[in-house]
Structure formats: C-alpha cells, structure tokens
C-alpha cells in the first residue's frame, strides 16, 4: 500500500527544480496566518504563491507573513496579480525578483474586471520581455490553444490555462480545450490555474495529463482549510496515478465485468 502511494510522488521538474508534489498552493484568504501555515504544510505543496502590495511607512506589513513563508522552506512563486498591462506586470516582476530572490514569476495580466479573464495580448508582450530578462515565466492564460502556442513561441516552458474564472470554484469549464492543449504541447509543463473548487476538479485535471494544479480559494475558503488541504493532496495524487495508469476506453454499451461462463441457475427457468 505504501509503495502504491509512493508511486504517485515520483519526482518531476519545473522551472529548474525537482519536486515531488504536483499541487501548487496560494497563500491568501485563510482565516489566520497559523491556519495558512498548517494548510500549506498539510497540502504537501512545494510551491506557494505570494504577491506584492503597497507597504505602509514604519510598519511591519508583510514581515510576519513573509517570515512564515520563508520558514516553510518551499519554493515561492510571486504573482503579478492586479496588473492590467504588460508594463505594470514587467515592473512588478522585476520588483518581485528582488524582494523574493527568485526568477520565477506567475505572470497575470487581467483583461476584464468582470470575469478576471487574462489579457492574452498583454500577457504575451510581458512574457516575451521577461523571458529575455531571465525570468522563468508561469503565464496564467485562458484555455485557448493559439494563445498557448504563442506563449510557447516566445519561450514559455510552462503554461497555466484557467480551469474557470478565478475564485469561482466552477471546475474545468472546457475540458476539451484543455485536452487539446495537452495533446499539442507534450513537452511543456502545464498547470491548471484558477477555478478549481473541489478535490474532484483537481483529480480531473490531473487525469487529463496536466502536470500540476494551482489553487487557493478552494482550500482557504473551505470550512476546514487544513482538512481540505489534505483532501487536495490526495486528489492530486489520485489523479496523477490515474493518468499514469492509463484509463480504460469508454464504451457505448454495457459490458459485464463478472464472467458469463458458468452463469448459474436462472437461465434454466426461461
């Protein structure tokens, strides 16, 4: 049993790091810093997303939080949340690189306030510049195959299509689009980012062959975030194991699983 569980924790590589967990977790919206810390630890995630915001003078804003994150000893993935242009995102990424000491950046350029849909044009522009500046870009994008292709063309090795709108918890809106991206880009690291609401959504994403899942609200806004973190840990591992095992082919009609040869007595009463 232990051996089987361990099979799902085979290492994988992303952004030059070798990791065992395929769950990427956000650090926002938890009931308390202590709860955030417990949830992140329980999730087994080895990548946590963080952000930058205005600092008040002579205050410790950010310090306590950042000290907790540093103490976890896991990889930090800063985001550019709140940016609406390539220029804003590039500046934020440069600032994040200095503060967090990493060249990883979750590139997020919002194009619409209603559904927080990423702006593919500005995302692409920013990605091209940031890659030239030595960043490892994790672009948050829609499930559009052509946008994924363009991002790959400018050098993105990682692409993060949304499952559905940020914070919606609706799961995977367009699985067929996600399958197409996976099939077209077997060499890229693909992470489903945003929209995951339940552990089963994460399992579904992993069963599609995605390399990982990034989520925040689904854990932080659960009634028991720590227990939900454990649920997502199991869900991601289950999905990955399922993918690696090779699922059966669907059939149009029923097919008995119990042998029909030697079926007992009722046939004799026809």
């Amino acid at each position, binding site marked *: 049993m232990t051996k089987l569980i361990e099979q799902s924790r085979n290492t994988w590589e992303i952004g030059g790091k070798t990791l065992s967990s395929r769950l990427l977790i956000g650090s926002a919206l938890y009931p308390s810093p202590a709860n955030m810390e417990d949830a992140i630890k329980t999730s087994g995630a080895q990548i946590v997303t963080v952000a930058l915001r205005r600092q*008040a003078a002579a205050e410790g804003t950010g310090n306590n939080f950042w000290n907790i994150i540093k103490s976890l000893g896991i990889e930090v993935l800063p985001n550019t949340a709140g940016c609406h242009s390539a220029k804003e995102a590039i*500046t934020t990424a440069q600032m994040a690189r200095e*503060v967090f000491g990493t060249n990883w950046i979750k590139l997020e350029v919002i194009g619409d306030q209603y559904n927080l849909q990423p702006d593919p044009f500005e995302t692409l522009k920013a990605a091209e510049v940031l890659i030239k500046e030595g960043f490892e870009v994790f672009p948050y994008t829609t499930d559009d195959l052509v946008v994924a292709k363009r991002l790959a063309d400018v050098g993105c090795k990682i692409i993060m299509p949304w499952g559905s709108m940020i914070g919606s918890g609706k799961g995977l809106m367009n699985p067929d689009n996600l399958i197409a991206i996976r099939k077209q880009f077997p060499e890229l690291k693909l992470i489903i980012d945003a929209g995951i609401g339940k552990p089963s959504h994460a399992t579904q994403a992993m069963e599609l062959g995605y390399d990982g899942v990034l989520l925040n609200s689904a854990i932080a806004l659960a009634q028991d975030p720590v227990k939900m973190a454990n649920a997502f840990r199991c869900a991601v591992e289950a999905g990955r194991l399922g993918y690696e095992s090779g699922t059966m082919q669907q059939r149009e009609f029923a097919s008995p699983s119990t042998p029909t040869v030697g079926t007992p007595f009722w046939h004799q009463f026809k």
Partner: protein
Amino acid sequence: MIEVIVNGVRTEISNEMNVKEVIKELKYRKKGFALALNGTFVALSTYETTIIRDNDSIEILAPVQGG
C-alpha cells in the same frame, strides 16, 4: 520642500534627494521591499544614484499573501 506621490498619497519631502535618503526620511523599513519610480523598477543597487524630484511617483511594495 518638494511634493512627491508615495504609494498613491501626496507627500512632502525636504528637497530633491536620492532614493536611500527618501526611504530614511519617510521612515520606511530599510529592507524587505522593492521600489518603483514613475512606473519603472529601481534596483536596490541604484538607490544612492537615483534622484527623486518634484512630482515623482514612488511605489514601495512588500510581500503579502497571494493566489
């Protein structure tokens, strides 16, 4: 005195000065943040050579929770 915008708030500082001096005058922490001037990143290594002038806009950002 000159007027600058710091994190969206109009603020007076004594005169034109470099970034390191502005940080000290406005009583910000000495580390744990990054700074942008008029929308452009200013690297820590250039604080002493980057001059803040009248009507400049400064953003001082620090780590927070993010998704």
